[in-house]
């Protein structure tokens, strides 16, 4: 079986903010979609299908919003799929869309993910108790803090590493016009002095709640040949899932994440990710997840991830830049966050990332995860097409 190569030829984002009270949900998604189409210099008529993703419907209080959004996304008369894989959904949505092209079912697909958190309350949406289930009354932070603590215990990482990540990502965000948090007066001391929320996670080491959308136009080889700007080529993509809670689960470095990365590297012919990959957009909603995922994704040996962070390797001008855009720590429209990682990776591979561009980035990883660290989706994109 030979698959059709998949190219990213259009990318659009909204300026992410705490509350977009000036637009409806439809207005928000349309803004990102139009920007992606403009980037690709295509019109709605060029789109064969729409694949949309978002995190739980409870976040906006709209059940199956793709039905209502069909008109706003030019989907009338076309196939429209709605993906939901928890926090990894933005990445999964892009992969489902890419597969439509790879399988030669469609030539050109619009994919979009969004969250308009201001319409409701995500903490509430995440904390609905149901009988015979562990209640998650403290939102995501309460769930993940113990795993961060386990990582610190396991690796002996000094408790300063988390603040370094937050300080870096918030500075990177200043170079990204679409990022939500633009903290011009950010200092490392301010991060370290911020209130403790879920020990060891401080206020400034957590992601904001954002309204925002991200869209991409994916197309086949023929579509890429017509693209006005350099495309990013998908070199590998995979999803992996494992159960939420069971005795054998390693919540610090889940097997599903390792397997997912291994599958992507195999597809892309990556032997040594640390050497062969130029930059990474990874899903880091709480700062400590940078060193944790560095290990899980094979960029560092077990217990060594924090040393890369501490040595400045993951800085924008480091040897392996991570979250050049400012990452989830600076922008978190939950359902869109995964797709933003994928899209920012593609922007880098296209050389279109502006002030936060990594010079000479040729192979870039986009990463997303969700649920209780149980759903993973990743893609590796490059500036050159995959070998025929």
């Amino acid at each position, binding site marked *: 079986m030979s698959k059709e190569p998949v190219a990213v030829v259009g990318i659009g984002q909204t300026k992410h903010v705490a509350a977009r009270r000036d637009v409806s949900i439809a207005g928000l998604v349309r803004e990102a979609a139009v920007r992606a189409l403009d980037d690709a210099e295509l019109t709605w008529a060029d789109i064969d299908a729409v694949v949309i993703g978002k995190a*739980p419907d409870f976040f906006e209080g709209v059940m199956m919003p793709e*039905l209502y959004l069909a008109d706003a996304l030019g989907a009338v008369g076309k196939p429209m799929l709605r*993906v939901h894989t928890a926090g990894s959904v933005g990445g999964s949505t892009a992969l489902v869309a890419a597969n439509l092209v790879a399988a030669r079912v469609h030539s050109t697909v619009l994919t979009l993910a969004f969250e308009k958190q201001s319409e409701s309350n995500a903490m509430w949406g995440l904390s609905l108790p149901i009988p015979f289930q562990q209640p998650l009354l403290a939102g995501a932070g309460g769930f993940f803090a113990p795993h961060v603590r386990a990582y610190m215990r396991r690796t002996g990482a000094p408790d300063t590493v988390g603040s370094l990540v937050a300080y870096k990502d918030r500075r990177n965000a200043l170079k990204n016009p679409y990022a939500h948090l633009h903290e011009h007066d950010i200092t490392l001391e301010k991060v370290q002095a911020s209130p403790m929320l879920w020990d060891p996670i401080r206020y400034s080491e957590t992601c904001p709640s954002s309204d925002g959308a991200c869209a991409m136009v994916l197309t086949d080889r023929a579509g890429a040949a017509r693209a006005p700007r350099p495309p990013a080529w998908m070199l590998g993509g995979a999803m992996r899932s494992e159960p939420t809670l069971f005795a054998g689960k390693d919540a610090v470095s889940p097997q599903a994440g390792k397997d997912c990365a291994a599958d992507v590297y195999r597809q892309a012919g990556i032997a040594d990710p640390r050497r062969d990959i130029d930059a990474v957009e990874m899903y880091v909603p709480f700062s400590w997840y940078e060193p944790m995922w560095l290990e899980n994704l094979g960029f560092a040996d077990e217990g060594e991830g924090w040393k890369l962070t501490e040595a400045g390797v993951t800085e924008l001008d480091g040897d392996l830049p991570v979250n050049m855009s400012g990452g989830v720590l600076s922008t978190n429209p939950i359902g869109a966050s995964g797709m933003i990682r994928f899209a920012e990776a593609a922007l880098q591979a296209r050389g279109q990332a502006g002030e936060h561009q990594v010079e000479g980035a040729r192979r870039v990883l986009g990463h997303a995860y969700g649920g209780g660290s149980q759903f993973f989706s990743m893609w590796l994109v490059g500036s050159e097409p995959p070998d025929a």
Partner: protein
Amino acid sequence: MTSDAAPEPRDIAVVAFAQSDTLRSTAEVSEVEMLMPVLHDVIAQTGLKTADIGFTCSGSCDYLAGRAFSFTLALDGVGAWPPISESHVEMDGAWALYEAWTKLLSGDADTALVYAYGKSSPGSLRDVLTRQLDPYYVAPLWPDSVALAALQAQALIDAGATDEPELAAIGARSRATDNPRAQLKGPVPQGDYLVRPLRTGDCPPVGDGAAAVVLAAGERARELCERPAWIRGIDHRIEAHSLGVRDLTDSPSTRLAAERAGAFERPVDTAELHASFTSQEVVLRKALRLGDEVAVNPSGGALAANPMMAAGLARIGEAAARIHRGESDRALAHATSGPCLQQNLVAVLEGDPR
């Protein structure tokens, strides 16, 4: 088509189908407990183990469970260890099958498990479904699913496309099924008006249930099933959301999906339609050009059992099962989503020539 010709697509088939009983209330079991026997059943039919499945995809909806991320719990029931390649659509399972079909087409997997489930019993389904309407202009008015279907039925009657006796006959025929999984069967009174012109007999029962299928590609399908139901085509299309801009007596999205799926290339002998209301069967029969010679909904269809999120997948499963049993050679299956048939999927299934 570009100059470098694309290779022939792979043949993919439904090789197994299982479903639960559809029940008015399943308060004694969780969603996962409702789903588990169905998963065991469908896997056992093929002799596969969970670890042998190349891709898993499910369809469900948080709003029925009343809880965010409700599908994550079902994954535990699948036994996703070692980790599996898996995805989920917040749609009817028929669309999960579509995603799995494209995954197999791309060659990434040779087999796929597709499942879907929904419990309507914890809430008031008519109220819950209002939450899928335009959240700013329509949902605040709480127009319920039966009222919207009644608008469509009245439009059909006004257009002379049907009348109440014909609708009653559709209801009676649907429930005259020997499907042991059906919730409503046998002589069911047409009942009083629920929302004019629809009587209770024109409306689906509210029920809880689950369904699952296994897909396989090429020779793998022949190994797993004596008479695979080959998917000759599958396509889905969506229409505008607002009822005011649609002709409710027609279903252009169904027609287009059927065309793209190749449904009109040769006649079908069976059609499993996801028509939740008698009046919707009238619309679908016209869009799909189904004559009286076609066996429509021998399973009873959604009028006999309508588990939300699983009913569409069950239509594909029921059509495939008829091919497996040698009762059909070419069958059409249809699934729908949204108010008044807003989004429609059509699959065409064939058995090997006999």
